[in-house]
């Protein structure tokens, strides 16, 4: 099966770096890795036919952040979901902009909403919120109640 094949390939190539790998359902593979290996894994997948970066999302768990990449191979029709674990106290991860230009705005959005810094991104600014917004609203500890006032631009 294609799903098994890609898991075996990845395990062969990266060995211990693949913390967890499972088949969620047909055409869905979930892989968990550490944040330091994200660039190499993505590069490897890209070179092996996983050309479509579908989405990058950031998730705030109680003990960690996760940057989740959905990468699709149109030939084998397998969608690989890579979950990169990021520690809470140092939310940084390497950018994959140099592999997929599509990562540009996804990473900016993740930064905007979750405060994860994508290192090596050429233009990491807020995207949906005003540039002088304080805090990261999709974090679970974000306080919703107090309003923010923004400086008036001349």
């Amino acid at each position, binding site marked *: 099966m294609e799903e098994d094949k890609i898991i075996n390939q990845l395990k062969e190539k990266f060995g211990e770096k693949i913390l967890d790998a499972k088949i969620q359902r047909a055409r869905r593979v979930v892989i968990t890795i550490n944040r330091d290996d994200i660039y190499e894994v993505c590069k490897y997948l890209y070179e092996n036919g996983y050309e479509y970066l579908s989405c990058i999302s950031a998730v705030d768990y109680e003990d960690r952040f996760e940057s989740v990449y959905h990468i699709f191979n149109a030939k084998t029709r397998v969608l690989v979901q890579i979950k990169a674990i990021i520690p809470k106290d140092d939310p940084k991860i390497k950018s994959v902009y140099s592999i997929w230009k599509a990562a540009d705005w996804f990473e900016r959005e993740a930064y905007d909403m979750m405060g994860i810094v994508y290192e090596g991104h050429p233009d990491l600014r*807020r995207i949906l919120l005003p540039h002088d917004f304080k805090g990261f609203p*999709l974090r679970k500890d974000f306080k919703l109640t107090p309003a923010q006032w923004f400086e008036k631009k001349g």
Partner: protein
Amino acid sequence: MKYNIEGLEVEEKDGEMILNMGPHHPSTHGVCRLVLKLEGERAKEIIPVIGYLHRGVEKICENRTYPQIIPITDRMDYLSAMNNNLVYCLAVEELMGIEVPERANYLRIIAAELQRIASHLIFIATFGADFGSWTIMMYGFREREMVLDLLEEMSGARFLYSYMRIGGVKRDVSEKFVEQCKKTLNIIEKRLVDYENYINENEILLDRLQGVAKVSAKEAINLGLTGPNLRASGVAYDIRKVDPYCIYDRFDFDIVTRKEGDVYARVMVRIDEIKESIRIVRQALRELPDGEIRAKVPKVIKPPAGEVYARVESPRGELAVYLISDGKSDKPYRIKFRTPAFANLAAFPHFNKNLLIPDLLLSFASIDIVMGDIDR
């Protein structure tokens, strides 16, 4: 002279002009702001500024129960509300392992494809307005109105339907609807010929569309373009075929592609896609089975812990939802919408360098964005 564009320093050199196109401009299709660095009328650099319509949908969803989220998804891409409903319902159903009844599946497909027709028609209409032909605009809306009538018959609403439910659909359709639907499809099919002729037999228009804002297949994939924009570059990538959902694998239809990758191709792909959608709806109407329209679902929807990535082909491209449930509450832990227009707009500045303003606007219109979809 230096400008601060949402935190980005941009310098205006000699012979350049920084022009704010939007947030209020007739051709930006909503409140999108494009900061253009012009040399004469040639845009050297494009800096999109978005977020004017940001409502924090993802945050709101974290504080709503699962069924309450359906109307919120309507308001993201308001021109293809059915597809937004569909992707969200598919995600929850996959999480809970709900089997959708046959009839509901067919109705979903009819609704989604009618929505695609309506959305592509509105694309053609607004595109007409952008190249200065109000006639095409009126024609597009005229045809869309008929499709909206059908959707109203189905769901009771004309714009924001909330038609899909977790485990099925809201209402059943009657025999009358089936007849009406067949009639309307015939009319639209006939009128599509007019559109094609208008574009293909007009030298001025061909001059404006052909060869403008070309994007190669490889580049388009790398930029994350999806939907008709990607297919216009010759990539046969359609979620309905490559990652089938619902019951799309039962239908006989083709992926429309074009080789050129320019504005012309993006327009023609959409016109041809309407034809394919008509084909699908006709098949669905023919095979429409009797039976339930909604599966038995618990009163309180509380999916087990887990995560799911569901995606559908919306009229604008790949629409996906990444849903995480912690299994403890009746509200999602995290929900992330991967909206097609967001990715398409992100790609836009990369393949539109050095275009004149009129070409730029046509190219902008041709990627068919909806600001509600981008800002969420």
